[in-house]
């Protein structure tokens, strides 16, 4: 599947730029380096987060949670982006 996708992406000129891949890999590896958080623990963190959020906000989209590490001036930030499904409510 991944291979077919990357073949198609290449065919249609959509292949991800290697500089973007480098940047993303660096961000991931630095999370590990700085916070000593392995990719496995990161996945676990996301799962736990979504479970907690789901207790309060049922519309949480567990699979779409993004946790990233940003470096600030003096502190780093572990930032979670938790998308909520928009429920089709009638007003």
């Amino acid at each position, binding site marked *: 599947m991944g291979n077919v996708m990357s073949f198609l992406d290449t065919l249609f000129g959509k292949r991800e730029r290697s*500089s*973007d891949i*480098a*940047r993303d890999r*660096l961000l991931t590896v*630095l999370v590990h380096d700085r916070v000593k958080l392995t990719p496995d623990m990161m996945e676990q963190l996301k799962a736990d987060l979504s479970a907690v959020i789901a207790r309060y906000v049922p519309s949480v989209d567990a699979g779409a949670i993004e946790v990233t590490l940003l470096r600030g001036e003096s502190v780093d930030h572990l930032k979670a982006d938790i998308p909520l499904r928009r429920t089709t409510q009638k007003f």
Partner: protein
Amino acid sequence: MSRVITITSGKGGVGKTTSTANLGAALAMQGLKVAVVDADIGLRNLDVVMGLENRIVYDLVDVVEGRCRLRQALIKDKHLPDLCLLPAAQTRDKDAVTADDMIALANQLRAEFDYVLIDSPAGIEAGFRNAIAGADEVLIVTTPEVAAVRDADRIIGLVEAFEKGHPRLIINRLKPRMVSRGEMMSIDDVLQILAIDLIGVVPEDEQIVTSTNRGEVAVLDRSSRAGRAFSEIARRLAGEDVPITVFDENPGILNRIFGAFGIRARGSER
């Protein structure tokens, strides 16, 4: 007020020695008195990059262990009368000096020179700690590659932990063409990840190889793009406000046409 500046990196081979030699020469060309110190004990390199390897009598460890006076170990540059080299010992290892020795040495050099540039070994071990011990400021060299940037991040943390202030970054061996094709991380990518101040960008330049072969530094060669980049970094170090220029590879046909209309062709400001 003299300044002691250590040039270091996490990953090896990213251009510390090249940067030290070129920045030292560029500062000396501005009429400043400069000493460059090879603190890579056991892996002496700065002397060959500067073409001074045949003039060495005493070295840093001889000074530290009191076998000679500092003056006797300092080697005058071939071209620049205001530039001196203090070579590393080749036959000793890094345990031959301590951090306190390096602090004392830096203070001795302060009395004689405006700038003292220390070429550090790569890594996070004793050699690196000794090299930054006597420094007021630190410059970190990286290339725009995953492993080098990762290791730079580690070093930045250590430098800050040693209370050497905020280090500044030199991005070396940038290939502007690859960046524009999305095949190499850009200056902004690297800065975003490392979140430190940039002091300059040095392009990949074959003339670094040829000038190193000759034992002449690139800043002496006006046609070298890397040399020009180092000269600008030296001016920034000395406090001048010089916009950061990325010296592109041989300007393509488009650049030449624009160049004919007086549009900055060889460099583009960030």
